[in-house]
């Protein structure tokens, strides 16, 4: 819902679909069928197929759905943060919270690095294509191809980190003085309300987790089978 408010629903939704749905398609059958998931106890359905009688377990079924959903929550939270946060505001806020400047730099620089890394990956990929990297290959070979991107990317990033450290150093990054941040940030009433709601929700969910011990094994049986 927040994604719609921030007008980034498409960017958030697409990766979610791509990651979560196939994951479910894999995890649901693997966990719910008798393939060794240790917590399977309750049989909810029996599949009659090829003369075999295959039980479907509730615990596995529930885990198969919740696990990818949890990953989905993490991904969507990260994407929402990345796509909607104004970096200057973020820096100004962290600064206001008196975070150490090195930490602030780490957060902000990570956000800035993402598009640069994407560019880098693209140019490495094109270079590898130009040198005869085959793309019309099977899945195993594709994974191998992935290595040909990751290795140069890691190496070039390491080199760049060194250069950047030098550049930062020569611009007084580690000067032992209070830094100046040019942007000022002021909390409006909306911000306080939002923060309060978030805090309340976190406390409530934490409470639920501790008391109910949310785990589909205990919980869903209680919900569905009474």
């Amino acid at each position, binding site marked *: 819902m927040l994604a719609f408010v921030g007008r980034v629903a498409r960017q958030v939704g697409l990766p979610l679909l791509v990651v979560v749905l196939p994951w479910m398609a894999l995890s649901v059958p693997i966990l719910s069928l008798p393939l060794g998931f240790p917590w399977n106890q309750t049989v909810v359905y029996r599949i009659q197929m090829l003369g075999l009688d295959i039980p479907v377990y509730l615990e596995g079924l529930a885990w198969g759905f919740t696990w990818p959903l949890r990953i989905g929550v993490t991904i969507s939270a990260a994407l929402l943060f990345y796509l909607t946060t104004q970096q200057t505001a973020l820096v100004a806020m962290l600064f206001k919270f008196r975070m150490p400047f090195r930490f602030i730099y780490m957060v902000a620089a990570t956000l800035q690095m993402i598009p640069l890394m994407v560019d880098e990956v693209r140019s490495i990929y094109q270079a590898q294509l130009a040198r005869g990297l085959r793309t019309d290959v099977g899945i195993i070979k594709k994974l191998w191809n992935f290595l040909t991107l990751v290795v140069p990317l890691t190496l070039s990033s390491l080199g760049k980190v060194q250069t950047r*450290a030098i550049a930062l*150093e020569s611009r007084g990054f*580690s*000067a032992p*003085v209070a*830094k*100046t941040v*040019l942007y000022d940030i002021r909390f409006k009433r909306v911000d306080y309300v939002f923060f309060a709601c978030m805090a309340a929700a976190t406390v409530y969910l934490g409470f639920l987790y501790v008391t109910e011990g949310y785990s589909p094994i205990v919980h869903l049986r209680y919900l569905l089978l009474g």
Partner: protein
Amino acid sequence: MAVSKVQYPISVEGFTYSYPSKPYVLRDISFKVERGEAVGIIGPNGAGKSTLCRALNGLVPHFYGGRMSGRIYVAGMDTLKHTVAELSTKVGLVFQEPETQLSGLALTVEDEISFGLSMLGYPKEVILDRTREAIEKVGLKGLEHRSPFELSGGQQQRLAIATVLAMKPEVIVLDEPAAQLDPLGKSQVFDVLRELLREGSTILVAEHEIEELATFTHRLILLDGGRILCDGSSRHVLRQVERLKSSGVDPPSVTELAHLVKTVCRMRLEDYPITVEEAVGLFAELLEGGRI
């Protein structure tokens, strides 16, 4: 601190340096740079140009470690006794690659320029003033709110110069600032340097290509194998064509042409031209005199 050293923006005295992994990159380097002087450091790859540049703002040895002897004074400050951050207001170092010297924190050109001053904790008004001034000097007006990553190479390099200008350094040191730029970017960068020089800045440029350098430096230092082979006025250094070539440095084409005219055609030339304009004058004279 001796009083005499304060007079020189840069004073290098018997400087010898070894990286932890590479011995004697620089050997017994000594020179002084006068205020308002433009000095070019020339030499082949691996001659120690970059190391020398990095020694001037204290990155060598503070960042790299290694062993050194001798002293470097920048605006009277011993680079060994002051941190790189302290030296950053005295020496502005511009690197070869435009992209890697961006802070990675700034979203706009303006932010990028103010970054260094913010790091040193200057008050906000001073930062904004100096940023505006630096933008004007390098001719990036109108691009203040662009992302630094969207600029062309030449613009990025001018941005890099602006970031050090905002610190109001005594000396601007540039390490092959034009090496990765296209011809247009190159000429933009050198135009900015010429302008700064006119305003009285002290500039030290390490460059591989001499052609542009010859048009505005007063003095050249030829570095090879970590030693100073030749140090003198640009004209004096450039006319030693054979010596430059044996060090793997290409003298300006016009100088080389004049040298060949002299040696091959056995003509008597008083002096070699070092810029195209001078060459036009000289050869026009020769042609009119019917000597060629």
